[in-house]
């Protein structure tokens, strides 16, 4: 039992799974000798050898395809993209090749695709993207978005043991986030024993009566801050961390809407074309009777991600924007 960073959690999950199952191996640029851009696999190559921690040529489509090939033989590759943004190089391999393989009766593709994504400070248009909207509509894929170290570790283990291609979103901003600066609810103790966290189950971070706030990823932090602020104003906000995006916990969304009648969906990705669209549509279809107010969504503005701080701040969702939306809903 103890407290570790999000980065350590990912690192530990990889290490433990590689110890547990020798068919688990890693492909990635600079992950061997260099330990990876974010040092997730520092020390791995010394321990597991060059055949299981593989520095690959700069060719994402090639090694994604190779990982799929290895997975077809029953191995369990975990591939690291240096930045989530570069997953566009392998789009075809993931969406066309890996995702439908089992449906086409060609066997499972146990593949974990690690994507260090989302905004850090001023990382610019190609080192800050939220990739989930690109993949969300593809049956056969799973998409996971852990925000706590506990979930990061437990869900990565689940991903590695899953027999399907899993897109595992990592939040660069959280890698080295000081544990003691996190709200308590975001730092559950990590068991010293092996544990896993199932996919498809949302986690209620905060119970509330007046408004529901459904989110995932980096904006979990803003959601909690905003809920605190609203609390002081006498508005009780229920905050739900989806954690798993595909499959997603539809029941959890419908339940909270049933309870509060008011829904705000929040994510770092752009609002336009974001996953919140699907969530809102499902609620508008299946919980229409329970809605007491327009469904609101907060996400990034509809522009590419800019680099310069004033622009980046204007682009990203902020606690203030969340507070405003919650207030509006509460007042409705």
């Amino acid at each position, binding site marked *: 039992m103890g407290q570790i960073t999000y980065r350590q959690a990912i690192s530990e999950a990889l290490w433990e799974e590689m110890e547990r199952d020798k068919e688990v*191996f890693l492909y990635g640029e600079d992950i061997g000798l260099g330990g990876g851009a974010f040092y997730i696999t520092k020390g791995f190559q010394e321990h597991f050898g060059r*055949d*299981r921690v*593989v520095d*690959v*040529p700069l*060719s994402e*489509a*090639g*090694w*994604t*395809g*190779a*990982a*799929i*090939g*290895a*997975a*077809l*033989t*029953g*191995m369990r590759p975990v591939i690291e993209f240096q930045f989530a943004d570069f997953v566009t190089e392998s789009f*075809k*391999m993931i969406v*066309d*090749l890996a995702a*439908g*393989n*089992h*449906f*086409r*009766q*060609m*066997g*499972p*593709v*146990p593949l974990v695709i690690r994507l260090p994504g989302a905004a850090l400070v001023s990382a610019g248009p190609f080192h800050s993207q939220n990739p989930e909207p690109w993949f969300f509509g593809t*049956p*056969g894929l*799973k998409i996971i978005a852990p925000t706590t170290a506990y979930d990061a570790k437990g869900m990565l283990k689940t991903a590695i043991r899953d*027999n*399907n291609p899993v897109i595992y979103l990592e939040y660069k901003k959280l890698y080295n986030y000081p544990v003691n600066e996190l709200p308590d609810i975001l730092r559950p103790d990590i068991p010293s024993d092996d544990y896993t966290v199932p996919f498809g189950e949302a986690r209620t971070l905060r119970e509330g009566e007046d408004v529901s706030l459904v989110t995932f990823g980096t904006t979990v932090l803003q959601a909690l801050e905003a809920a605190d602020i609203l609390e002081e104003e006498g508005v009780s906000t229920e905050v739900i961390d989806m954690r798993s995006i595909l499959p997603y916990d539809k029941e959890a969304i419908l339940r909270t809407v049933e309870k509060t009648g008011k829904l705000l969906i929040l994510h770092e990705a752009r609002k336009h074309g974001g996953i919140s669209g699907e969530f809102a549509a499902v609620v508008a279809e299946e919980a229409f009777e329970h809605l007491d107010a327009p469904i609101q969504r907060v996400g990034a503005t509809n522009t590419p991600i800019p680099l310069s701080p004033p622009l980046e701040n204007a682009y990203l969702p902020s606690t203030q924007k969340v507070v405003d939306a919650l207030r509006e809903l509460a007042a409705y």
Partner: protein
Amino acid sequence: MSETTAERAGIPATSDELARLDYFEDLRDRYLSLDGLDAKWHSFERENSYPSFETCMRLHYFMSHTRAVEETLDSAFRSGHIPGTAYFARGNEAASVGSASCLRDEEWLVPMHRNCGAHLVKGHPARSIMAHFFGRMDGPSRGRDGNFHIGYRPKKITQLISHIGSMIPVAAGIAWAEKARGTGRATLTYIGDGGTSTGDFHEGVNFAAVHKLPVVFIIDNNQYAYKTLLKEQYACKSLILKAPGYGIPGFLIDGTDILLVRKICSEAIDRARAGEGPTLIESVTMRLAGHSVYDKYSDYVDLENLRRWTNERDPLERYDTFLEESGMATIEEISASHARARADAETARDEALKSPFPDPATLNDDVYAP
């Protein structure tokens, strides 16, 4: 700069009988015209390396069976039994059968859409292939896919996706797994002349070269990529000139000569098994039919040239002639093999047509693996 083309075109790592420097001048044009190829491509010393009678006849059966299966499918298409479209590979029987016949049962085959013969010789039953084309439950994809987008797991044959090039990295990855597990097994894959232009080809071959993977890449150069000519596809004189750029050996062969194909491929596969890394083989053939059953190829091919290839380089006829002239088999033996190959194809079709169409209720099955 001094320009001595022969020096510059320096052909690396081709089998000595086949590669001469001056040979690569305008090779792309020569493929088409056949001029000058005969003398050299025939110089392969087959006498010293004939396979056994059984092997020779097995190869014969599978080449003939391949032709029969495709012709049977073609007429099934004309009778409306094939939903969608179909690609055939008339002219590529020797290249497919000769190469895949070198694989062991436990080795993976990663075929493309012109490798019906590779499927068959690797053990994929014609009935299964036909049921797949007919969109039936007994096809390996249970109706989810069709055409030569087909694999067969019981015999370790992968299914390609349509996106040309994608399977090259997959083959490299399978070979990576074999190497990582130390199985000593080779993997065999194919790509078209068009497919060599894809980024995936480059990334996959490079990956295999860097990791010295046990994989053999055969370029089925049938001189067309749909309606695109070789000169619109690449500017080098032969595609094996790409081999030194990956640091691997490359061979250029006449893909209509099954014994030559088999000899070069088995050497390459043996090197792979021995841990000596990948090989690139360019097998030159001619697509003797349209790109697909829908293709009006007479619109764009050089018909005179096509006629010459058909007459002079039909892999089946060449092999029939060889078997007979070498005294390897009698005319009766040869005819019997053809007859069996065709009868088996027709039986397969009849059986496949008895397979039911998928129940719409099965649509949602298997999107996810358990």
